[in-house]
């Protein structure tokens, strides 16, 4: 099966600094993959490189089997939708309008209906007409997540989709991504909460200083060795009735 997203030997440089150093990653349709790593490990750059937003110094980035640079704007949008980490919204648009921008190419009525449905899924029913600048940060994050869902692309890429959400909303967001992968979409998320990542994702890619140090199911990817190396943590994943949780403390230097 053609991967929805593929990176091979991807190198991204910022000035003299190498931000991504020979990264490889393939995500198949229906897979839910988490990208984790410490601050500055290269998670956002990996997503941006895969989507053609960061220039590759060398290597390959493909969406749906074609080099991302060869795709027109329209084709790229048909293959991937992106939720960036930056949640700033320039003007006080109503939540339904923000969500409807995921389907701008559809007739206005259809886009509006899709937006209302997606806002219901993220728990913003009743707030559809509220301006996003009048919302709390978490509510705005949900409205932006609704836009990603409205896009309904075969690849959904979200940078820190759980940031700023309350615990219930974090679990809801991950459930929604699970639903999207169940409908056949490939989903790639960056997450800082390792317990949440382990619980939600089929596979975790651990980045450290721009390199992949693990790419495996969560239990293997977050081994004690990787936790120590990539996160300076002393601990392990433990089982709980709700799924794996991280039991860890700062490693002694």
């Amino acid at each position, binding site marked *: 099966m053609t991967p929805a997203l593929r990176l091979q030997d991807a190198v991204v440089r910022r000035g003299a600094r190498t931000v991504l150093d020979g990264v490889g990653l393939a995500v198949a349709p229906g897979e839910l993959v988490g990208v984790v790593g410490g601050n500055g490990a290269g998670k956002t750059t990996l997503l941006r490189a895969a989507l053609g937003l960061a220039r590759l110094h060398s290597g390959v980035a493909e969406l749906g089997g074609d080099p991302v640079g060869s795709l027109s704007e329209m084709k790229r949008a048909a293959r991937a939708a992106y939720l960036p980490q930056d949640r700033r919204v320039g*003007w006080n648009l109503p939540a339904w309008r*923000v969500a409807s921008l995921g389907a701008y190419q559809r007739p206005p009525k259809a886009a509006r209906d899709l937006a209302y449905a997606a806002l219901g899924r993220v728990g913003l029913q009743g707030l559809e007409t509220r*301006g996003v600048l009048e919302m709390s940060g978490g509510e705005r994050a949900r409205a932006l997540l609704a836009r990603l869902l409205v896009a309904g692309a075969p690849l959904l890429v979200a940078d820190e989709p759980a940031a700023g959400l309350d615990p219930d909303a974090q679990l809801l967001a991950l459930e929604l991504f699970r639903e999207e992968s169940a409908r056949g979409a490939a989903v790639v998320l960056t997450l800082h909460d390792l317990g949440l990542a382990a619980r939600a994702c089929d596979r975790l890619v651990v980045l450290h200083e721009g390199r992949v140090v693990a790419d495996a199911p969560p239990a293997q990817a977050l081994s004690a060795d990787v936790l120590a190396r990539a996160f300076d943590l002393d601990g392990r994943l433990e089982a709980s009735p709700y799924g794996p949780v991280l039991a860890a403390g700062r490693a002694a230097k």
Partner: protein
Amino acid sequence: MRPMALNLGLVAGLLALMAAGLLLGETQLTAAQFAEALSDPASGPHEVLFAIRLPRTVCAAVVGAALGLSGAVLQGLLRNPLADPGVLGVAGGAGLGAALAIALGLAAVPGGVELAALAAALLVGLLLTAVAARFREPETLILFGVALSAFCGALTSLVFNLAPSPVTLAEVFAWLLGSVQNRDWEDIGRALVPMAVGAGLCLYAARGLVMLTLGEETAALSGLPMQRLRTAAVAGASLLTGAAVAVAGIVGFVGLAAPHLVRAGAGSDPGRVLAPSALAGAALLVAADLAARLIPTDLELKLGVVTALFGGPLFALIAWRAARSWRG
């Protein structure tokens, strides 16, 4: 408010102000003189109404619409409520072109100053368009525009500094303060072509402006040809501003205030603010020109002075109300 209702209301207000622009002026016409103006094309009142007041009022409306539309596009493009047609240096470039033309004696050539202003504005617009095509971030464009504006301002000051005579100095200064006095149909015709092209480019860019609300990266992956739309917005706003400054000099506040004035009715969608902003800009400038004519002073007030005098406090009021609504 429904967009159609808002636009119709603005059109009605604009037409009422334009009618006032025809009926009122320094020369008070009686009912009999109005009748004479309509019946006798060779009469003095006809001349006052149709050769002086009508082109002047139409010129104010056209320039105001261009500035209002340009301001709305720039605020949407730069996602900045403080953006206006002066922010990117196009108005400053046009001012420099006009100042140079006057200093070089081109004022004697019909349309010479206007063409020089437009050419300089287009040159600045071209530079900005190249920058907009190269860099995605609005901050880069703003910083580049501020640098261009400051440089054009410095060169205009140099023209003042080296002006061959006090008369030239006064001429340049008067032009820079802005006016639609004594503009004829030829002046308006010359401005209309670049303005129409600019307006077309801005309307083409409208669908990109709303997507930019969510940030450059979301817009880049939306499927819209964002680079083309961004370039069209900068080129369109530059053409509108350049043509407006070329025909009327530098008139501040209209481009800044018009979009804010209509947002309460039109909503925040930067694509849907464009048409109402153009109409509000036209109405504002026709009203400002009327005020310039009717305020009893020995020398007629310059349009740029009136818009700044009334626009400053008005804009402060709008900003205060907007800040209150943002704070909730």
